């Protein structure tokens, strides 16, 4: 009865390794690198949400910038106006964005594939405008946005950026493990069954509405937590930071990392930040080299032809071939 399950052992090993790598990296990374990795992880958390929603549940969103923005603003507002400790705002940001996603999941129920993409597209395009509205200006700071301080180091001797990096990394690893456990549970199988064949799934007794709205809520919550970390890392939020292109870039990160995977979220977040930086440097070499996001657009299309499951998908398939 008490035989260790090989799957849980794999999970425990990955968890320990990720925590170890995260702490080890902290000793070699400069403050700026730590800040960059923190941003990458913030995007990574949001991408994890996107992967669960799109990759595993088959619901399309090109509007996750809206939830990313909501999480960032909830955090920023609580810090600025209520004087909360930055980390204490995270659960609130998570709860608020979960509710938002859950509620948005209801209209999403009636919208399949393309129409859902369209509705979320509209949400993303409208977000900056909603954040700028005069009536909310007292809370959101209008076009200027809000400024606040980064959280103090969690223990003495650590720089502000390193401390935030460590917290973000640990939270990310915990969320990845949580996502892994969710997707390998009974609920996870239901989530994937809905993606593969909704009609068959409902015949099997799966409550489509409940699962789809909850998945939307979880996904939005992850985007919100990512947004909150993004706000903490930059110690500032403003409406135009969260334009429609953030949603597009999150999607790019998700596809490049591997949309039907959990580790792909980490790869996607790192690609978002570092891929952009290197591509930027590369394009500065010559007038003839296009800017990063042109290259990434081309990359995105090529991936759809040759590697629709992204980097992690390629790794998994390569590994499976080696083992054969």
């Amino acid at each position: 009865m008490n035989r260790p399950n090989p799957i849980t052992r794999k999970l425990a090993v990955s968890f320990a390794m990720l925590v170890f790598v995260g702490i080890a990296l902290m000793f070699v990374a400069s403050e700026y690198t730590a800040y960059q990795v923190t941003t990458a992880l913030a995007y990574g958390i949001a991408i994890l949400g996107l992967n669960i929603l799109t990759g595993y549940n088959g619901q399309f969103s090109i509007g996750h910038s809206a939830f990313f923005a909501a999480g960032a603003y909830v955090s920023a507002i609580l810090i600025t106006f209520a004087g909360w400790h930055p980390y204490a705002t995270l659960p609130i940001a998570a709860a608020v964005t979960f509710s938002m996603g859950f509620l948005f999941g209801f209209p999403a129920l009636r919208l399949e594939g393309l129409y859902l993409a369209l509705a979320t597209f509209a949400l993303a395009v409208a977000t900056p405008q909603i954040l700028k509205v005069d009536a909310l200006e007292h809370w959101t700071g209008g076009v200027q946005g809000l400024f606040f301080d980064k959280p103090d180091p969690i223990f003495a001797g650590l720089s502000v950026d390193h401390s935030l990096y460590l917290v973000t990394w640990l939270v990310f690893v915990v969320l990845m493990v949580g996502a892994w456990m969710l997707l390998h549970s009974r609920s996870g199988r239901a989530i994937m069954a809905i993606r593969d064949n909704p009609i068959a799934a409902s015949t099997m007794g799966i409550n489509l509405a409940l699962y789809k709205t909850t998945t939307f809520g979880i996904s939005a919550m992850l985007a919100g937590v990512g947004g909150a970390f993004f706000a903490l890392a930059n110690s500032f939020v403003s409406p135009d930071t969260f334009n429609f292109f953030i949603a597009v870039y999150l999607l790019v990160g998700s596809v490049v990392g591997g949309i039907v995977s959990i580790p792909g979220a980490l790869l996607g977040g790192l690609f978002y930040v570092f891929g952009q930086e290197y591509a930027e440097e590369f394009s500065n070499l010559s007038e003839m080299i296009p800017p990063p996001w042109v290259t990434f657009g081309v990359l995105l299309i090529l991936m759809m032809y040759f590697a629709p499951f992204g980097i992690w998908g390629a790794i998994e398939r390569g590994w499976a071939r080696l083992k054969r």
Partner: protein
Amino acid sequence: MDLFLQLTLAGLAIGSVYACVALAVVMIYQATDHFNFAQGEMAMFSTFVAWALYQVTGSIWLSFLIAVALSFIAGIIIERVIVKPVENAPIFNQIIVFIGLLMIFNNLAGWFWEHTTKTLPSLFPKHGIDSTLISTHNLGVILFTLLILGVTFCFFKFTKVGLAMRAAAANPDSARLVGVSVGWMLALGWGLASAIGAVGGVLVAPIVFLEPNMMSGVLLYGFAGALLGGVNSPGGAVAGGLMVGVLENWARQYVPGGSELGLTFALILIVGVLMFKPAGLFGRVIIKRV
């Protein structure tokens, strides 16, 4: 009353532009069952091409015509080279390809022409009519759009190619059996949509200023128009586009806080239509057999 009329007429003018975009969206939707999310950026790019040509030729009409022709050819090439390989791929892959196109065009425009706003002169004379109700540009936009729509309608109704295109969209297999080259009809559809988008872009540029992000809002209103009219009805898309333009202008004036929430209005409209009347006002209800 004057204000109301002014608002309505200005709404019809901007609505004409939305109608162009909506029509382009519906054309591709009918042929392929997909919304082209890159439609707005393609139209923006065409408009920049028109602007660049205008700098060289000095004639706005000449630049306009060349830009529309180039857009038509570019649309065909894009369908043949980029979209065709994912023709039968899952919807996810196709949307990602559209997003890729969107990124490429948006950033290429920023790279070629920089992110500063440019002014593109109106196609229509400055002092044509003497009226306080409507500007010459807006009147020109409305009439010109009606002309374009009339031509498109006649093309689909009375020409052989138009009939073949409708056949290819309605029933690809049967169309293939009677000798219609379905693949080329799709490409032609992309070409036409891209050309119509270019017309919309050049018409709207004097109103919203030319810059790489000018079309994202317009595309959203175009989508809203297409949905409101019915995604499988070109005539409905045009009516929907005009309605969205007018409604938006009224909302800006008469709804408190409406002036800053135009896009939110489009969002509510899109979600509302999708929830309560997914076929739109003039569309057919599609019944799917499972």
